[in-house]
């Protein structure tokens, strides 16, 4: 029980770790959920758009560092700059992937685009690795340290500055996306296409453009999350996307796939569950199961939700179409 008491002391710490992870999941989950909402298609390669964004963002930071600018500039600006570049690259890649690998099979049976997406995911992993190996001689990247300060929020709660940046930036993106979808003309078109693609087409909405826009936004968010992830955890490899992507997808399903607030809620909850679960599992089972089971926990949640409540926390159950 002594171990438990130690854990209780670090709860504020776990909370901030969980939130940082959860917000990253949430932003990546948005990409899955937006595409699913419109096409009923799991963009399996979304995890690679995240990974690609992480590499681009990290490379930008490294470039600034090797140019000797990084030390002199405000870390906030550096972070925003790298994130912006990552978003542009990831977004462009997302649209390209849709155009090349998904659009030709849009009308095929449902599993065909899904399998195509798996293929894209593998291709992107190797391409990124190829470029990184050619450039740096190794396939993983370590991100330069941007923030070193720790900030005391409350007597028992000292959090790294970068965690605050991550949570803040993620919140900002969520608010922006929510505003865009509810207020902007294109955002409304997106909702219309998600509701009923054919009717939207009849109403004069350019459905292909809306789909491309969805991929653009989803992928750009993924790229931003990638940069934040790399800054938070310090390193990234071409294979980092897979497990994180699976978890972000879990988060999207958890919250109710197709629902933007659902992805946010699901991501945050999953991050907290994972961080708390990993710490408490060991203590609760007397060390038999430790944090090495945190991925098992996430996958088990995915399976349980899909089996028992596939509509997720915020989704309504949908009757089967006959």
């Amino acid at each position, binding site marked *: 029980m002594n171990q438990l008491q130690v854990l209780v002391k670090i709860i504020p710490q776990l909370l901030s770790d969980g939130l940082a992870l959860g917000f990253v999941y949430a932003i990546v989950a948005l990409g899955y959920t937006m595409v699913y909402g419109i096409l009923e298609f799991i963009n399996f390669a979304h995890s690679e758009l995240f990974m690609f964004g992480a590499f681009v963002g990290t490379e930008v930071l490294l470039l600034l560092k090797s140019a000797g600018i990084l030390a002199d500039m405000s870390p906030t600006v550096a972070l925003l700059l790298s994130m912006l570049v990552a978003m542009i690259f990831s977004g462009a890649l997302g649209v390209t992937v849709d155009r090349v690998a998904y659009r030709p099979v849009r009308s095929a049976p449902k*599993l065909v685009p899904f399998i195509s997406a798996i293929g894209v995911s593998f291709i992107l992993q*190797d391409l990124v690795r190829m470029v990184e190996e*050619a450039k740096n001689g190794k396939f993983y990247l370590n991100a330069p340290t941007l923030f070193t300060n720790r900030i005391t929020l409350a007597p028992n709660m000292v959090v790294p500055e970068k965690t605050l940046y991550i949570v803040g930036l993620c919140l900002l993106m969520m608010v922006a996306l929510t505003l865009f979808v509810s207020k902007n003309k294109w955002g409304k078109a997106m909702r219309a296409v998600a509701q009923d693609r054919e009717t939207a087409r009849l109403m004069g909405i350019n459905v292909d453009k809306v789909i491309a826009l969805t991929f653009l936004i989803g992928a750009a968010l993924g790229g931003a999350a990638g940069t934040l992830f790399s800054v938070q955890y310090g390193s990234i490899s071409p294979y980092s996307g897979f497990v994180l992507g699976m978890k972000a997808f879990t988060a999207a399903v958890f919250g109710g796939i197709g629902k933007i607030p659902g992805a946010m809620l699901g991501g945050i909850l999953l991050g907290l569950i994972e961080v708390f679960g990993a710490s408490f599992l060991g203590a609760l089972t007397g060390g038999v199961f430790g944090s090495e089971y945190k991925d098992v926990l996430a996958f088990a949640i995915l399976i349980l939700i899909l089996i028992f409540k*596939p509509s997720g926390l915020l989704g309504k159950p949908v009757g089967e179409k006959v």
Partner: protein
Amino acid sequence: MAQHPLRPGPAAFDGKTFAVKDWIVLGLMAVVILAAPLWLMADKGNSVAFIAFLASLLCVYRLRVPAWLRLLLAVVDLAVVMPLVGASSGTFAHVATVICMYGVLALGLNIVVGFTGLLNLGYAAFYAVGAYTYAIFASTQARNFMPFGVYPLSGNWFWLFLLLAMLVSGFVGFLLGLPVLRLKGDYLAVVTLGFAEIIRLLFNNLSKPVNITNGPMGITPIQPPMIFSLRLDKPVHYYVIVLALLLLTFVVVRNLQNSRIGRAWVAIREDELVARTMGVPVVRMKLLAFSIAAGLAGMMGVVFAAMQSYVDPTSFTFMESIVILCMVILGGTGSMTGVIIGALAVIVLQLQILKDASSYLTSLTTAGILNLPSWLNPAKYERLIFGLILVLMCIFRPNGLIPEKRVLQIKEKLGLKPKADAGGNAASKEG
């Protein structure tokens, strides 16, 4: 019935439909079929001859001659030439063994993906279950937790474990299928993927509190198969074992395909609701497909464990499931010959072409002829190649290289002729 481009048909010898071009093709194929095995026999270590030999097998398959002749040629190639070559060249025997192993795996996955239309992305998990079932008991590993018995078990147990692992994996497949099979399409795919990751993580972590799997270190050495006191640990031994298992699997799966069970599977793939309305117990049929496929993977897992004499969790990643899926998609979902040829193509690519190209380029680099940076090593681009196969097939040939072709087994086998009007008059003539 329309003539299938790759299959021989009754047109072969009637002389009328056989144009000059066809005779030339036939002649060329005959040359390849006769020459390639002889070449390989003469030069047993030559990679190019080996690939030519495999290509000659494809020619046998496509040859427009009666079935018995093709069967005879195939038997000579597979059961005489290959073992003789394999006895002197372990590498080729190994490649041939791996082809046959994946042939079985592809046939198994094809039951789920091709016949029943369910995407299973966690097939490697069942392979892992089979491999570990044998590995644990045919090594000292079982001593850690078994209260009785002497371990490792002798290689004579191998044969029983083929069956046992099939049952264990089949049961695991059944347990997984029970809750998840009512999920649709891509959701099912993601759940099977999650499940496979859980299985792999369990094998990776079950070294405590009781050391069952030895964690990431893996289990080694594992007993090779034995017949009484004869150790079957040469590559050619495994080749013969696996070839026999492949043939057995092929016959069993084909019998299933041409039965009420096989028809129920395809009916589910085509229209699940209508299948139910026709009285097909969909859940039971899906479970059966899942369990049989899992069982076949389990059986192959035993061979894998014995052959490598080593298992660890890294052999059963998502990548492994995708490689098998690639074979099915490449060959043609639902097409039994297709998926075996898919297995052949993928394995030859993976084990022969990529490796040979890689070592050839490396030798050029060492010889100073070419300065090939290590990042360009072709052997590193398996993922890229499998990814490309999946995407390109989806876009350009979603039915695979050799698409599924349904034949009336009953009619062909029994020589039945359509009966004359028995139940009444035709309802109406074609309008």
